[in-house]
């Protein structure tokens, strides 16, 4: 008696092999479809907006006339926003990460903080806008200033920076720590002089990626009440301002066809800023990767 029915196996084998190769291409096609979406998106925006890009576009204020509309106030406004967001979010994020990795005892409070950070990452950005509106704009009476928007954005990207910094600190080898203690250094000296320098590439990469998220985020700014038409540059953090995504949102939502070209040009500027920041992150990551 045979255990394997040769004929049945042969008959079924063909179908199985065909299914195998068909599905391989279906999976590949799905992956490529996602990439195709990205290509179409970039192609559309570049072809639509490239014609409007010029030095004037970068140096003009917003205007009622599409051909004169420029992005100066928004570009400078986004830079001002970063001046507030970068130090605030990095100090808070890295501080939290040091506490959680180096000082925190394994207890309920620590677990609660950890759980809280991961939950915070899942809160929609528009809800952060509501928080900013109540706490910073109204309760602390900062108005729709750069400071109010900056604090709101800092809290929004805080979870990303904490998690990235935690990973960077965790990946510093234990021997470095032991060696430092062995030489008589205190805990804080070890953290400042040994652990942080070793972890800084990872922290920077994560922070830059988080900041680039803050630059592209629109919803919280709208909720806070950041205006769009601004004909002056802010002089300090208490001034009102506008930002790149706000300006793009305003142009996109106008009915006139010409403003869509302007919006596309604005998107090119925004994407160029993001590309610049991401390349810095990649360079830092590659330069310092796997030192240990």
């Amino acid at each position, binding site marked *: 008696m045979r255990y394997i029915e040769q004929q049945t196996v042969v008959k079924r084998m063909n179908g199985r092999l065909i299914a195998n190769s068909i599905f391989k291409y279906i999976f590949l096609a799905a992956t490529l479809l*996602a*990439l195709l979406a990205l290509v179409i*998106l970039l192609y559309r925006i570049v072809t639509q907006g490239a014609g409007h890009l010029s030095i004037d576009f970068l140096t003009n204020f917003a205007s009622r006339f599409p051909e004169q509309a420029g992005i100066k106030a928004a570009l400078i406004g986004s830079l001002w926003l970063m001046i507030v967001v970068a130090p605030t979010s990095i100090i808070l994020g890295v501080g939290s990460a040091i506490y959680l990795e180096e000082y925190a005892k394994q207890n309920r409070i620590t677990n609660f903080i950890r759980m809280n950070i991961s939950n915070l990452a899942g809160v929609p950005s528009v809800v952060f806008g509501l928080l900013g509106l109540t706490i910073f704009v109204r309760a602390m009476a900062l108005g729709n200033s750069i400071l109010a928007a900056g604090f709101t954005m800092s809290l929004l990207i805080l979870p990303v920076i904490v998690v990235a910094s935690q990973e960077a600190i965790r990946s510093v080898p234990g021997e470095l720590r032991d060696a430092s203690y062995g030489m008589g250094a205190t805990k804080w000296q070890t953290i400042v002089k040994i652990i942080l320098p070793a972890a800084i590439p990872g922290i920077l990469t994560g922070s830059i990626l988080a900041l680039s998220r803050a630059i592209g985020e629109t*919803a919280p700014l709208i909720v806070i009440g950041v205006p769009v038409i601004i004909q002056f540059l802010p002089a300090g953090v208490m001034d009102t301002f506008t930002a790149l995504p706000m300006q793009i949102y305003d142009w996109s939502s106008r009915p006139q066809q010409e403003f869509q070209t302007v919006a596309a040009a604005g998107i090119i500027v925004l994407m160029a800023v993001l590309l610049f920041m991401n390349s810095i992150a990649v360079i830092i990551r590659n330069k310092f990767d796997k030192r240990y």
Partner: protein
Amino acid sequence: MRPSVQEMIAQSNGKKNKKIIEKVIPIILFLIASVSVLTSIGIVLTLIVETITFFRRVPFFDFIFGTTWLPFSNKEAQFGILPLIVGTLKVTLIAVIVAVPIGISAAIYLSEYASENVRRVLKPVLEVLAGVPTIVYGFFALTFVTPVLQAVFPEIKIFNAISPGIVVGIMIIPMIASLSEDAMSSVPKSIREGALAMGSTKFEVAWKITVPAALSGIIASVVLAVSRAIGETMIVSLAAGSTPRFDGDFTGSIQTMTAYIVQVSKGDAGYGTTIYYSIYAVGFTLFVFTMVMNILAGYVSKRFREEY
């Protein structure tokens, strides 16, 4: 003459502030770490306090069971949130229909079929897709996807649920793909090799071994992506319109919860008006929806994880 080591140690022990630093720093860092907790408390308190003010003016049951959302009506404003929830669910449904098959297929391709080199190219590109600001996706939905859809189906209006739904789907593909891929990659190789040795084809290994074994992670990734789709704001604000409707129509203008918050914030609803408080009530509802999804995702990935 240079001081000896003993002298240096003595000197260093004499410095009082060093000891103080060691005591003060952990406290400062603890305070910094508690900022995130304060943020959560701030969010919940803000939403609850302002929502309570809202419910003093609008009865709770009218809000959660009402099927008419007419906040700007001069005669009698109505605040029934169901139309906004229905609008949100329409967009989310389309997004899921687009993103789940593509995202999971991409994850299977990356974890089961792709060579190391292909993976090294494809994964960063997917990350780029995840890094595109949502305002850019919104512009894309409004100026490209909608006109293309209109060319094929003329009955689709300029503002509709389908176009933003598709684009929100594109936006969450990388999330599903990369989280599902992580789950599939953590299925041990030995199980796969066992199945291959028994004569399975690669597809059978993927479909009958890897996917079932990684199912908890895959489902969790989908739930998280749904939560993201529910909270997505700019795409729907630009491309979905601002007509809250309690029906099953996908081709006309709708409004989601997030888009309503943006619509009110953009206008000048004065502080203290019922409309002003209504955005907190809507925000609170949105918050509850996303929280439930996030907790569900955590629960699924813990509770149903296959341990190897």
